[in-house]
């Protein structure tokens, strides 16, 4: 997996694509499972990005809004 190197937008875009593919069906079980795992990993990456951004924002806010 290379999701650590993905930007938030890349990860989100791929996540949407993965979910669409999963929803469209027509894949083998093995493929479906691989897609789902990929989707989970991408969702985690997105969430990490967002959490990181929010943490940085909160830190600045805490530092200055005394």
């Amino acid at each position, binding site marked *: 997996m290379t999701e650590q190197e993905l930007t938030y937008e890349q990860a989100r875009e791929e996540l*949407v694509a993965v979910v669409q593919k999963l929803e469209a069906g027509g894949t083998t079980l093995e493929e479906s499972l691989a897609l789902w795992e990929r989707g989970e990993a991408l969702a985690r990456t997105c969430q990490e990005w967002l959490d990181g951004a929010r943490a940085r924002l909160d830190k600045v806010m805490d530092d200055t809004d005394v």
Partner: protein
Amino acid sequence: MPSLRDATAEAPAPVRAVANALAQYVDRLGTVWVEGQIAQMSRRPGLTTVFMTLRDPIADLSLSVTCSRVLLDSLNPPLVEGASVVIHAKPNLYAARGSLSLQAREIRMVGIGELLARLERRRQLLAAEGLFVQERKRSLPFLPRTIGLVTSPGSDADRDVQENARRRWPAVRFRVVKARMQGVQSAREVIEAVEALDVDPEVDVIVIARGGGSVEDLLPFSDEAVVRAVFKARTPVVSAIGHEADQPLLDLVADLRASTPTDAARRIVPDLAEESALVAQARERLRSGLRNWLDREEHALTAIRSRPAMADPRHLVDARSDEVDQLRHRARRCLGHQLDRASDDVTHQAARVAALSPLATLRRGYAVLQGADGHVVTAVGEVATGDLVSVRVADGRIATRVESTNQMSEVPDEQADA
């Protein structure tokens, strides 16, 4: 009287002769109209003559002027130091002292109307030369490092500029160059101050500040040399001369014209509180922008994750599991049918086998003769005497040997047992 040119080292002329000769020479010069500023005036009690110093407005030189007290007292408005005057005078050498002076016969105050007319002419000339054009104006820095201030220290103007600027921007730095802001020395000192500040690399803007005053008071700020010095300066110059109606030419040549010293303070430094508020506002917008973006993205991400495909991956397996169950069911059912069918067939076939079985016939006493190779013997000719044959009866076989054969002439069509 012998000419003084005849005097020699051996026969020198006496002082009185030289003094008198000079006095006569000067006396022959006649009268002259001269313009200048009254730099100093001393009325000594008991003397009918008043001594004054008439100064050139630009060059550092002056002449003594004497004037009768009567003439002086007749002037209206009274003559004051610093006034611009036109004097009709006669040069005079006071032989007793050897001092040269101009004896004033008539003193004309340069009237306000006259002054204004001259200023207007000067303004037009300098404007024609391009000293006042807007394109030549320099813009002020947003936040000057050091502000050069030309003013008379301790004056209201000095305080107004410094205090108001400091109130707006506490860290403001001034370099004050002292200059008299009124009187005959003023123009020169202002020029020197502006030049000194202009060459200081730390000074980003120069303010010339003075409180309000009469047209005469403000004359130095319309002085041509001052105007040219300001025009020449590479540092932006702010004129902060308090006045009401008449504009000194400095206002026109300055890069920025402030209406008062207080106004100048407002123009040269930004307001810290105002700027801080702007920064705070910008920061708040920045943060809420990011926060909104985060909320939006998080919402979208949650939506994607809660789609059945992602939220409940078991259904990936479940759906297939159902399918497998169904298929298994179908397969079983299908197989069952086939088994049933096969079973029926077997029963049927068994019945047929049973129906076709010769066993019943055998039980009734018939037997089947089979050759050694197992073929059913149906004719005498198929066996020979001595052949081993097998007789199949209802419950088994009897092995025997052919003793003899006897062929009948005809074989009836009916069954042997009929």
